């Protein structure tokens, strides 16, 4: 009976993983569909969608906008968020409680409220909505995630390394740029990747603050009513393959290294 129970756990979680994968596989498979107008029924295999992605109207331009928005907001949010993370771990200052609350609240607020709030503010100030307002919005919600990610890294930093730098007569500036910053890079990169992913895939906040500007998720949302072109699946699948390749290299590389270490030790 106990053996069966163990077996059940594996099957159950395997099924949960399969459940997660179904729509991903579906999206990728239908990027190869010879769809012509609506990409709902399978009409046969083709590479045409992949070879001529920009064939469908607005797919490529909205994708370009998404890359631009995600790139700029990632740079802004990572810079501001990293600075806050350093301050939180390294320094004592007044209003610490208020600061942590201010950083926590955007993550605990539903996106629709963040989006409507900013949109209400832009409306009252008479600001024209467009790519700039999308970037403003994305930078805002990414900052907190950057702080959380980088802060974890700063907190586990070995202070002895910096002390060694100081003992060797490095100036505070040198210690920071030659010792601290390089040690923080993995955390900063992780934070930047997270921001990029969050911004790139954001729809709800974007929809409230986009005006006429199109991002890729907005394109998909508006196209959903009349049928998504297969080219949209191509873009999504392409992004997926690139991202998963990066993650696989990082994850599997790390795992192989650990496994080797375990065998040697």
């Amino acid at each position: 009976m106990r053996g069966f129970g163990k077996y059940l756990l594996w099957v159950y979680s395997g099924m949960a993983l399969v459940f997660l994968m179904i729509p991903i596989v579906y999206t990728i498979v239908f990027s190869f569909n010879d769809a012509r107008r609506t990409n709902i029924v399978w009409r046969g295999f083709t590479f045409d969608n992949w070879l001529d992605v920009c064939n469908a109207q607005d797919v490529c331009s909205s994708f370009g906008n998404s890359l631009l928005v995600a790139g700029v907001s990632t740079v802004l949010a990572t810079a501001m968020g990293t600075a806050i993370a350093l301050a939180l771990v390294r320094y004592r200052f007044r209003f610490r409680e208020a600061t942590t609350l201010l950083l926590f609240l955007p993550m605990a607020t539903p996106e629709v409220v963040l989006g409507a709030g900013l949109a209400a503010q832009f409306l009252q100030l008479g600001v024209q909505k467009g790519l700039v307002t999308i970037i403003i919005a994305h930078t805002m919600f990414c900052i907190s995630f950057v702080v959380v990610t980088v802060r974890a890294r700063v907190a586990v930093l070995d202070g002895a390394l910096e002390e060694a730098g100081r003992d060797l007569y490095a100036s505070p500036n040198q210690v920071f740029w030659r010792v601290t910053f390089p040690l923080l890079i993995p955390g900063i990169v992780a934070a930047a990747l997270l921001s990029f992913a969050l911004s790139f895939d954001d729809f709800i906040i974007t929809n409230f603050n986009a005006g006429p500007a199109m991002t890729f998720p907005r394109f998909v949302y508006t196209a959903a009513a009349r049928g998504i072109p297969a080219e949209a699946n191509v873009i999504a699948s392409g992004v997926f393959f690139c991202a998963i390749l990066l993650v696989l290299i990082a994850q599997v590389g790390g795992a192989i290294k650990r496994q080797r270490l375990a065998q040697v030790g």
Partner: protein
Amino acid sequence: MAFGAFQSSAPGGSVAAAAPQVQRKSPVALWLLLPGILYLILFFVTPLFSLVLTSFQESVPGGFIGEYQTAFRFENYVEVVSTYFTHIGRSFVYASLATVFALLLGYPLAYVIGVKLRAYPLWQALALVLLIAPFFISFLLRTLAWKQIFSDEGFVVGALKTMQLIPADAYLTGTPFSVVFGLTYMFLPFMALPIYATLEKLDLRYVEAGGDLYANPVTVFRKVTFPLSIPGVISGTLLTFIPATGDYINASRDFLGSTDTAMMGNVIEANFLVLQNFPAAAALSLILMMSILILVSIYVRRSGTDDLL
């Protein structure tokens, strides 16, 4: 890993375990904090005040649609609550159901990846990649994939009808079932990742000790493993419940919902972007935010952890 954010947002995570670092007082702190904090005040705090201001506005007498002036019209709140009472209730019911289902699916999955696969680092890494894979492909397209799988001509409905599990005129899309299903799917990784993060750090000697003391596996799980994973469960449930309550993709007519499944998010979107009834949208947004904050603080208080960031 990019989604390390969930690990450290788990209370009592690696942050608490780190060696204490000396905290100094210095004007540098101010310069580090200033840009980001100012930014959040400008684009997070003041928008909330704009929202409050907007929620009390009244329409300009004889003005166009979408024209409002500053006022103190509390009736806006009374009106939206009485008009959208069902939508408000529906949001919380759907989100709670999705949270429970995501926990039921996500916990065992996180347990297998974090504990059972520990002896096989390569498989563990691969399973983890699969768990975060959904983040890399447009969530709108994934939701649409379910819509097409569940469509009337689709394979699932056909099979269920052939097996006579559902009547011949039944349908799945546009029902509460498909909306809760979609929400569960969408937030499963958000549930499983923080739980994985705490279970991955679980010291297996505690579990062994439980077994040595003649506790059966169920008791060990109930008294040792689960209590130690509660920080992850809290982060996971919050990361699922909060966005699920405000979600309007799954419940949208073009995705898995219909007008009968519209949630608060749909109503806020419709009022703001289509009907241009900004005060109603603002009032609803604030009601949504306040109810979530109240529910979350009760939940966090009761589970005994205040330290969330």
